[in-house]
């Protein structure tokens, strides 16, 4: 099957404007602007079943329809902050298939009536931002951006904006704060960005991969898109596969393929043919899934992964084998979240701090069983109390790790 998002795998020169245009490039944007009303674009995307690919899985067209039409101007912001450990798909899209992504930004902007769109990129994507700036300039030169697009009165400008190293800025309201030149700390919600977003104006924030799906949905139609994937999760997803597999990398698959297919067929199986122990389906934010036959044969779509007590999230599949113990794994995830906690709400700021101290004690060999119980208790007490998802995420591997891999912790505290 040919690729839909990772189209550069079939068309290696697709980052060249001429090549992109020869392969239907900007046909969808032109079709939308010159022959469709904004509301028709929104309805088509709603009908396609496209859901946000950044992690939350919220229906894209529905999000767009929430935009407050009594408050102008409107903005579109592409979330290219990609900072979840285990996630590296948006980077490949922007580096290799930039025009399809930019066309997606343009279509979203037309659909919600925005004349300016910002691409918020993590600060480390310095080279990718310079590359996108070149591509945007090429589009301006070819009159694909600017005033009076396709002979209509629609105008659009796209700008890149670099963050500076903060995982929290992937959270959409923290991202908007950061784009306004402030510390990236989440806002109290509601109001949500479609009513109060960038500069207090209605704003749609969509993930890079989500936007990159749009051009083909417009040209080929919602019914075509729904033939891919499952009823609950339409279309294709880019799975970032990492950890103890032979062939880590991005794999574009329709929703509904199993973990076993991804890890053993695409990924070539585990390094040195060792036994697999655990899967994290949504990067460091994941519940640790015990990698038994039931889990390996579970289809990777939003609803099915939930039956395992986990979430598909951004589909960043980290594979863990028997060379590491789970107390080491959660030591890593806790340090990450402790470092990235923005400090705004107390449960997250204090909770990650104490979890780090306790896990360090356990890892040092001077811990006792009461430390494991205390760690579990702190994580449990944080749940449902944090201002944004980051605090919640920091507890997922801790709670599931202690519940499902109790033996590892017993061993860690029995060492002394």
């Amino acid at each position, binding site marked *: 099957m040919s690729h839909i998002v990772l189209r550069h795998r079939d068309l290696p020169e697709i980052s060249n404007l001429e090549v992109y245009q020869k392969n239907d490039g900007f046909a969808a944007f032109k079709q939308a602007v010159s022959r469709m009303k904004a509301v028709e674009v929104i309805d088509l995307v709603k009908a396609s079943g496209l859901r946000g690919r950044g992690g939350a899985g919220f229906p894209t067209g529905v999000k767009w329809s929430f935009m407050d039409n009594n408050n102008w101007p409107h903005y579109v912001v592409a979330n290219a902050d990609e900072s979840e*450990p285990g996630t*590296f798909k948006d980077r490949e899209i922007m580096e290799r298939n930039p025009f399809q992504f930019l066309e997606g930004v343009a279509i979203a902007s037309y659909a919600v009536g925005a004349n300016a769109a910002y691409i918020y990129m993590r600060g*480390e994507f310095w080279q990718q931002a310079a590359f996108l700036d070149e591509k945007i300039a090429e589009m301006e030169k070819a009159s694909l951006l600017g005033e009076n697009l396709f002979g209509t009165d629609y105008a659009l400008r796209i700008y890149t904006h670099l963050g500076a190293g903060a995982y929290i800025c992937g959270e959409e309201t923290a991202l908007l704060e950061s784009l*306004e030149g*402030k*510390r990236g700390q989440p806002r109290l919600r509601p109001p949500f960005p479609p009513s109060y977003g960038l500069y207090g104006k209605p704003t749609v924030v969509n993930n890079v991969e989500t936007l990159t799906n749009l051009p083909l949905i417009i040209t080929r139609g919602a019914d075509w898109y729904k033939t891919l994937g499952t009823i609950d999760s339409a279309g294709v997803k880019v799975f970032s596969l*990492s*950890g103890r597999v032979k062939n880590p990398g991005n794999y574009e698959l329709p929703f509904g393929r199993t973990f076993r297919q991804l890890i053993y067929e695409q990924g070539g199986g585990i390094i040195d043919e060792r036994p697999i122990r655990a899967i994290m389906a949504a990067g460091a934010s994941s519940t640790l899934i015990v990698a038994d036959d039931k889990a390996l044969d579970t289809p990777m779509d939003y609803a099915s992964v939930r039956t395992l007590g986990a979430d598909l999230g951004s589909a960043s599949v*980290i594979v863990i084998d028997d060379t590491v113990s789970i107390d080491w794994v959660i030591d*890593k995830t806790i340090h990450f979240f402790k470092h990235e906690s923005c400090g705004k709400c107390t449960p997250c700021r204090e909770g990650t701090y104490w979890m780090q101290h306790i896990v360090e004690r356990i890892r040092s060999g001077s811990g006792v069983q009461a430390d494991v119980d205390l760690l579990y208790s702190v994580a449990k007490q944080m749940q449902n109390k944090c201002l944004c998802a980051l605090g919640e995420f920091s507890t997922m591997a801790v709670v599931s790790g202690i519940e499902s891999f109790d033996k590892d912790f017993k061993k860690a505290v029995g060492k002394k």
Partner: protein
Amino acid sequence: MSLAEKHAAEVKKILAKYPPEQKQSAVMPLLHLVQRKNGHVDRHAMQEIAALVGITETDVAELVGFYTLYHDAPAGKLRLQVCVDLPCALRGADQFLAQLCESLGIEPGGTTADGLITVEPVMCLAACDRAPMFQVQGPDGIAYHENMTVDKTMELIEAKRKEAKK
């Protein structure tokens, strides 16, 4: 010479990206500019940036403290930032960092005697399938180096040393 005079074209280009009444948005790219040109952001630069976008020096200082790519103190000319997060660590990143530091005769966070290289462990850089990896932050911006070994890294550092002597 002031920041706005010294880098007039770049400052103008940055300010043009945002609505005229929303100049504060330019603070992040202006900080990147100073970080890149000076290797760190000192108090004087913070004052200049604050004046350019119409906020206080404290507003700027809190951003320098919050975001990891801005540094308020000088270090090596090149900051070699090794990802040691979970996916990279599952592919040997911790050992890579330890061996690299040993080869350079420094501790993680330390700077080589010639003042060229600072090695820092950092959080995920979205390159999990190409570990061990690091980025180099310096006067030319940020560049990724992936699927690295200690030998390859030492060669890269030697090349940078020669370049610096020119």
